[in-house]
């Protein structure tokens, strides 16, 4: 209902503008413009690009994809220092803390206003008044219409559509808005129903009638309970399975970030200064996340497979692990990597309530040449209707909370995941999260604690003591490494 009202509102606004401003289509027609976009992975979906070209024949989108690290690291640094580069750059949230420290590299999106270039789409015509097909077919085969965006929208006017904590990730230290959120990587637990039945944690009947996920969610309201369930699972594994390296969860290291993100502070405290105050030595939440991870390691519930390794992709197919912490975008990854496991997966809720991993902002660098065209594109591409389309076709979860109540999100069931109502599950978790102040060296500190956990979990020998790393030794080493990083 909400979405319909919203769309109707837009349509009225669009019509009103169309009449009020009454710019003749031919008069504004065709100053060709090329928007260059630097992006990675699947941030920019090709189908939506096609749609945008239909309603904007004058726009050419030149998309350059690279790997995330060079893109958000060296490429963007070089671009900002040399003051030339793309019109739009995608910034991943692990880099958000870094780039928020340099608002001068970005256009303050509060100062931008959408032009009336988008208003004709809802009439089914392009800018020149020619009829175009602005419909698309979603993953369930339903035919839907591409959304439109009203004129005169600034970042301030579209802000209420988005999750507040997610919006903050695109706000610079000087309160300028440097990026608009794309999808949100809400974190839940993906589990293999067949393996859970085998371990006796749920029954086949519960899997069939769709209550298995609730049964499991109730079994692990907290992380310590989650580890308990893991132990029960491991107890049911045969000796051969254990020798083959099978486990309850793919990698216990992933628990760390999940626990940490459930708090309100990570490594920085907002003390009103640009840089924030470093609290990695004192924030008890970090130690809690660390200890929880190592408790899971001690309980031996994890495999030794690293995420995104070739082993991991194979393990996903072979049922080497029964659970994994899955951000919403991971659903699409599982579908691609393990298509034969269709129907065997399901989604339960994350212990401790809600989590996030990943997500991206679209930014307009301060040196962009076509800022107006770039803003028109971003405002359209990240509008609730387009995010809904991306969710319905690719499973990426919208960061626009205004559409969570919409039936196409709320009632969306995914057959790959045993018909789990993924829309409802994911939207419940992410609305519980609070904004976290991200600092410049967030990523490096994350890496150092991750390496610290890796030292203990891999059972490596400490060269100084000639014995495996203990938790305390490794913690001290991580703190020392971070001291180096932040000096």
């Amino acid at each position: 209902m909400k979405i319909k009202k919203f769309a109707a509102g837009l349509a009225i606004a669009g019509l009103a503008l169309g009449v009020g401003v009454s710019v003749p289509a031919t008069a504004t027609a065709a100053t060709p413009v090329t928007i260059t976009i630097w992006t990675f992975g699947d941030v920019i979906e090709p189908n939506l690009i096609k749609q945008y070209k239909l309603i904007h024949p004058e726009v050419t989108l030149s998309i350059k994809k690279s790997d995330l690290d060079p893109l958000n690291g060296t490429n963007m640094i070089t671009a900002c220092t040399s003051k030339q580069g793309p019109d739009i750059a995608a910034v991943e949230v692990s880099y958000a803390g870094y780039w928020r420290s340099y608002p001068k590299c970005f256009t303050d999106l509060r100062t931008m206003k959408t032009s009336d270039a988008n208003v004709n789409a809802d009439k089914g015509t392009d800018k020149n008044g020619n009829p175009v097909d602005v419909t698309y077919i979603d993953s369930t085969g339903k035919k839907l219409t591409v959304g439109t965006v009203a004129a005169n929208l600034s970042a301030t006017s579209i802000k209420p559509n988005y999750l507040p904590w997610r919006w903050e990730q695109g706000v610079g230290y000087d309160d300028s808005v440097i990026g608009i959120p794309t999808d949100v990587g809400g974190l839940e637990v993906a589990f293999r129903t067949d393996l859970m039945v085998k371990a006796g944690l749920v029954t086949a009947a519960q899997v069939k009638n769709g209550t298995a996920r609730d049964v499991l969610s109730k079994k692990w309201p907290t992380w310590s309970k989650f580890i308990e369930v893991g132990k029960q699972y491991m107890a049911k594994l045969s000796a051969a399975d254990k020798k083959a390296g099978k486990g309850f969860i793919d990698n216990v290291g992933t628990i760390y970030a999940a626990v940490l993100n459930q708090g309100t502070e990570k490594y920085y405290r907002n003390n009103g200064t640009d840089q924030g105050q470093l609290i990695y030595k004192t924030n008890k939440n970090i130690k809690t996340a660390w200890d929880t991870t190592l408790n899971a390691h001690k309980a031996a519930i994890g495999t030794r497979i690293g995420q995104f390794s070739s082993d991991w992709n194979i393990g996903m197919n072979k049922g080497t692990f029964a659970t994994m912490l899955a951000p919403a975008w991971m659903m699409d990854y599982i579908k691609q990597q393990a298509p034969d496991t269709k129907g065997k997966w399901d989604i339960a809720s994350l212990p401790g309530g809600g989590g996030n991993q990943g997500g991206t902002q679209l930014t307009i660098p301060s040196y962009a040449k076509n800022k107006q065209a770039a803003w028109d594109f971003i405002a359209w591409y990240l509008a609730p209707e387009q995010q809904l389309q991306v969710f319905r076709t690719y499973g990426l979860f919208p960061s626009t909370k205004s559409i969570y109540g919409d039936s196409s999100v709320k009632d969306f069931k995914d057959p790959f995941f045993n018909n789990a109502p993924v829309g409802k599950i994911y939207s419940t978790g992410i609305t519980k999260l609070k904004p976290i102040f991200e600092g410049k060296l967030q990523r490096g500190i994350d890496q150092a604690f991750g390496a610290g956990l890796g030292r203990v979990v891999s059972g490596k020998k400490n060269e100084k003591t000639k014995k495996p790393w203990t938790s305390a030794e490794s913690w001290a080493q991580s703190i020392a490494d971070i001291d180096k990083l932040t000096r």
Partner: protein
Amino acid sequence: MSSTAVNDSPLIDKKGGRPKTSPSPWKPKKNKKEREDFPGLRSLNGKWGYLFVAPFIVMFIIFGMFPVLYSTVIAFYEFDPLAGAGGLSLEGQTFVGFENFIYLLQDDRLYTAIGNTFDIWFWSTFPQMVISIGLAAVLRNRFLKAKTFWRTILLVPNITSVLAVAIVFGQLFGREFGIINWVLGLFGVDNIDFVEDPLASHIAIATMITWRWAGYNALIFLASMLAIPDELYESASLDGASAWQQFRYVTLPGLRNTITFTLIVGTIGGLQVFAEPLTLAGTTDGGSTHQLLTLTMFLYDSAFGASSKWGYGAAVGIIITIIVLIVSLVNFLVTRKLASGEAK
């Protein structure tokens, strides 16, 4: 080409004579008479020479010398590329004197990186040398069919993208489902973690390097072997030398200079190992105990990793330069000793 253009050519006698055959401008001193016949050659040695080397020199100054000088300067700054006025300006950057270097010498990552680099170098150089000479000895066989085919195929690994190699080998070395651990498992060996275990990870990297370069070096050895006169082998076999003795006492001494050459080139390459460990470790810091951190990765991680401390990265670069100088000196001494050994 028009006739005027031909006449403008410095290689042509301006008096209208046709050019002498084989003017040999590269060795003008060889034949004094010939040089006098070519008045244009004098200028060829002068300003024309500069023109010919200009493309390289200009490129070198822009992409070689200038970055070296500039990074030497910023090694004395706490250089944040985005903090200052931007571009090449030093405005807004903090001058810290030798602080980066003092800190660097106390940074245990530096010593880890040096150790790793030389360990990987050791494991990639010596087995590779044996394999290359062995391959060359096989190709030297005059009864071998389809010689060109085999020689060509040896170069295929070398022209394969480093990244592709690293990704494929990363799969072969997988801890749980990698084919190498599977084969080892058949012999009752427990799964080896080729990423986390320091020695195993170095050997994994060395394998990638060996795979890429063994064929290339084999061709160099082959060329050198073909230069050894057949008479030596004939007289050796007349003296009753076995195939192994021929290899040991005829082929190997003849390869001495080539071995030195491949060692030097291998050392230079060994100090630059980057893409393979980066891909295998998956992070720029070289893994949880920096077991895969090489010197160049350390430089990259300092400058372009999570912290973006360009000044510190530049200081690492200068330390690498010093290490390269030391290694070159050792190389030079060893080479000289080998050369004098040959003279005896």
